[in-house]
């Protein structure tokens, strides 16, 4: 295999990983855009989504049909968890100092992780995630597996749906309005609470889908699986410009490619460090992100 093909292969793998990060980053960026909160627990929603799908597939066996069903069940479940989380933990703190909301988010994150660890049917040990038999197709000397095709198809499909919801529906318009000015949209008769809950539901559903894709690509589920993808997706959201939806997608792809190229050509242990290195570089060079707008502080 030539160097060029190797680079191409790693880029393809990176895009596949990146589309998972992008799905997750969308949740961060939407929530941040609307309530100015870094939802630390977002990565753990990915874990929950993966586990729901794991149980569905364990009960029903693995076929393309049950996999699709598991996507629906898991996304619905996580959307409900997202709404519950927002209503119980974040809503009472909406007017509190930001640091309080951040600490609560960390608490929720730990609660979900350790809660999953303590529940007997999940437990602390990693489990093998059931997947369809793997098939690899070869195109131009570059191998593309069936899981990667699934990842691309689901991720791109969901992003198109999200794009439609945000740009062409009433609730999407309300979301954009609330993100622009919460007070004014309240005066215009928009039910701000409902819009915020909807945003959490939407973000959590995307995270659940990302969780199933992540678990299929690295066939393993465990309670702490959401931490690293969550952090990297957050970095991706900042990279693209936090609050910007196309930015989150772009950031996700860049993160994925950067990570696989580091793994392939430098060192696999550096791969986790590269994410935070990237974050520090962005914060120094262009804190608003690639597609974000720098907004001055309102007095």
């Amino acid at each position, binding site marked *: 295999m030539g160097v060029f093909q190797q680079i191409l292969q790693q880029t393809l793998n990176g895009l596949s990983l990146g589309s998972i990060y992008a799905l997750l980053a969308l949740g961060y960026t939407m929530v941040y855009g609307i309530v100015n909160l870094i939802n630390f627990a977002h990565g753990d929603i990915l874990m929950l989504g993966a586990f729901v799908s794991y149980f569905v597939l364990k009960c029903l066996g693995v076929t393309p049909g049950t996999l699709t069903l598991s996507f629906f069940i898991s996304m619905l479940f996580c959307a409900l968890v997202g709404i519950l989380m927002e209503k119980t933990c974040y809503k*009472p703190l909406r007017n509190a100092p930001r640091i309080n909301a951040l600490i609560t988010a960390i608490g*929720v994150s730990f609660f979900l992780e350790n809660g999953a660890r303590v529940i007997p049917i999940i437990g602390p040990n990693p489990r093998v995630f059931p997947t369809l038999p793997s098939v690899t197709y070869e195109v131009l000397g570059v191998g593309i597996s069936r899981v990667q095709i699934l990842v691309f198809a689901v991720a791109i499909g969901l992003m198109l749906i999200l794009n439609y919801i945000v740009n062409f529906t009433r609730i999407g318009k309300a979301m954009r309005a609330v993100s622009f000015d919460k007070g004014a949209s309240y005066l215009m008769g928009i039910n701000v609470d409902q819009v915020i809950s909807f945003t959490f539901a939407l973000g959590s559903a995307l995270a659940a889908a990302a969780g199933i894709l992540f678990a299929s690509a690295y066939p393993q589920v465990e309670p702490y699986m959401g931490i690293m993808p969550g*952090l990297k997706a957050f970095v991706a959201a900042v990279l693209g410009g936090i609050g910007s939806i196309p930015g989150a997608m772009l950031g996700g792809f860049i993160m994925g490619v950067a990570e696989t190229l580091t793994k392939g050509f430098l060192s696999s*242990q550096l791969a986790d460090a590269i994410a935070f290195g990237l974050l*520090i570089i962005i*914060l120094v060079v262009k804190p608003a992100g690639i597609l974000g707008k720098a907004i001055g502080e309102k007095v």
Partner: protein
Amino acid sequence: MSRQYKTTITSVWLLAVGFIIINGLVALRLIDEYTTQVLTIGGINVIIALSLNLISGFTGQLALGHAGFMAVGAYTTAALIMQLNVPTFLAILAGGLMSALFGLVIGLPTLRLHGDYLAIVTLGFGEIIRVIMINLSDITGGPAGLKGIPPFTTNFFWRPVLSFALVQLFLILVIIMLSNLIKSSPGCAIISVREDEIAANAMGINVFYYKIFAFTLSAFIAGLGGGLYAPFFGYLNPNMFNFLKSVEFLIIVVLGGMGNITGTVLAGFGLTYLQEFLRFLKDYRLVIYPLILILMMLFQPAGLMGIFGNKEFSLTGFVRNLKRKQIFRRRSASDKAGDHQ
């Protein structure tokens, strides 16, 4: 001699006498070795929690990587003692300085922005430090850990006493430094940054400078805590300093009350002691901690000291109170004497 000066002198005497008595009790084994050990660990925890309180409680910038600073301090101290034979006391200070340097380097790019970024970058920093420690196996022993760090003294009898005394000495110095800093003019500037960044800026306070100052000082103190940790335990492993450890300090700060030194001290010793008691709960402990965080933030965001109006315990104030009562008593005694005559 002014009255204030006298009060300070009396307070220092009181502190010194208390310190000697408690160390005497430890040396005579009237406080058993187990309790001494728990108190020593508690002291280290309180030092690091205080450093976190400085940046998160007083300055209002959430930092989630204090285990990382602790690791920098601990490994620097251990390396200096083991490889260069530096005296332990100097090595601990060097650990603090190294950690402060890391704090400065991380703080410069991130503190320019909104506080949220600091939380993520410090969290990432903690993880990077752990990865670096695992890879620098010449100095750190890699994932297997670093064994055989020489303790404060090899004398079996004096070892717990000296560890205890040194940790509590550092703790007292840190408390005195912090409580004086908070009352000073830079301290007021730091608190104003927490209260309202924009207003502070408008009043001519260099917000960025004070954030960097508080963060670097916080890293320095956390490094000292780590430096004390290394010779006390004699063994270091990169996985001791994970994210969970950072969150443990955060829980101490939140429980005691953000921006309250007395609260942090009480919560720090209390939680360390409680941890020993709660061992039977095993993994359920891990669920109780985050619940404490969430419930405190929802119902009692000012922490336990918030119940008492967020007051601080002050030794000088205590001494002043005692004196006032004595004067009162003496005067009433002479009044009574007058009545009899």
